[in-house]
């Protein structure tokens, strides 16, 4: 199964917003999960599980300490899913 980069980004932002009961419009790729949103380690696990469910993937074995922003999450997801080539 392939997934577009845009869909991955949307799923990540939506998972964060849902988990924190926040407005997705207030979150962007560079938002700091801990410093800007106050995400703690348990909430981060919940966010990752939400992403796994939405994309039907497994994200076991992540180094959670390196996941500082939504962009970091998108980067690790693109390593485990096949991302569609952008249409030229």
């Amino acid at each position, binding site marked *: 199964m392939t997934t577009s980069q845009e869909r991955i980004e949307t799923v990540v932002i939506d998972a964060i917003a849902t988990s924190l*009961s926040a407005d997705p419009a207030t979150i962007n790729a560079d938002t700091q999960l801990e410093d800007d949103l106050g995400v703690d380690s*348990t*909430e981060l*696990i*919940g966010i990752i*599980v939400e992403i796994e469910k939405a994309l039907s993937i497994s994200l076991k074995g992540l180094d959670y300490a390196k996941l500082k922003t939504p962009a970091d999450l998108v980067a690790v997801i693109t390593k485990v899913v096949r991302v569609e080539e952008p249409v030229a």
Partner: protein
Amino acid sequence: MTRDVVITGMGVVLPKTRSLDALWHHVGTPGPHVERLSSRIAGSRIDESAIAEALPPRLSRKLDAFTRYALIATQSAIEDAALALDGIDRERCGAFVGNCFGGWRFTERELRHLHGIGPRAVSPFQATSWFPAAPQGQITIVHGLKGFSKTYMADRMSSLVSVASAASLIRRGQLDVAIAGGAESTNTDFVRAALERIAAANGEPDPAESGFQVSEGAVFLVLEDAGHARARGARVYAGLRSFAMRNAPSRPDQYAVDPRVLEGTMRRVLGNLKADIVLPDASGLARVDACEQAALDTVCPGVPALRPKGAYGHAFGAEGALDVVFASLMLHRQQRLPTVPSGDDGADLSSARSGTARDARQAIERILINACAMGGGAGSLLLTKES
């Protein structure tokens, strides 16, 4: 160092009850207040929709119901005390919680996820939501309290012990202020199944047909050093005078049926004093209540014994603190609780028989509260009127 300890704020979250006035009104309103919660257990439960907006959703979804109740009741108690937390030394303010069952509402749902879907479907907040100290942790985090804090699990005595322990630390000068009380969520299949076994082990194989009724919720108090309360001009509901507890050999799933256990704790807290009103443990288990009545007949003959918990059912970990609230309201208002007579919904144990119109007009100076625990525990707390 020995200081006087007073109650300056109270908050409740109970079935159909969110305020002290509602509490007073509820126990005086003819029932029935209890319903059949399962095929074998009767009692009352909290309508979650009535408190859905009370906490931020981001916080609420991490918590079991008993912690949500605790946070709401704590906030009400702090507001009732008009206590500005920014103005106190939070290193000398702690949280003391009584609880019996922990977070089975959350756990039951997540166990269903585990067995129905798989481990990844289990909420990561399961790890922090279930344990009985969760309310203590959340109260201290939300309010930034840094003083000594503790959670007590002592069955139906739990929050009598938490209140008494908080008072002891204030009395000894280790704290100036404490948030103390109890929280319980019983509206789950697991807890009801456990309660059926408890009732059966104590002589009530068909609890729905007995007086054994179950409630839930949270009750919290603001306790203060009397000097601290006076300095800030706080309203004082009542004083916490003395507490005693002891234990008699008993099976882990059974209550003591030797009246001498409660006689001992009552005598210890009363000394030469006489109580004006007693709030008994009133478990609803016939042989346990008969034991308590025998102790009352010996130590407090003729003293009116009110049983307002009959208007809700027994709130287990929150019950001791609830009785402290009932006593504090009576001492502060100088009025007997308007409990309805037994036979309607069992809200009054013996005042109809031992109380008189003259009793109702007498000044209320001292109220004695009893509580018991499986395994043979018994405790008594004496509250006094404060001028």
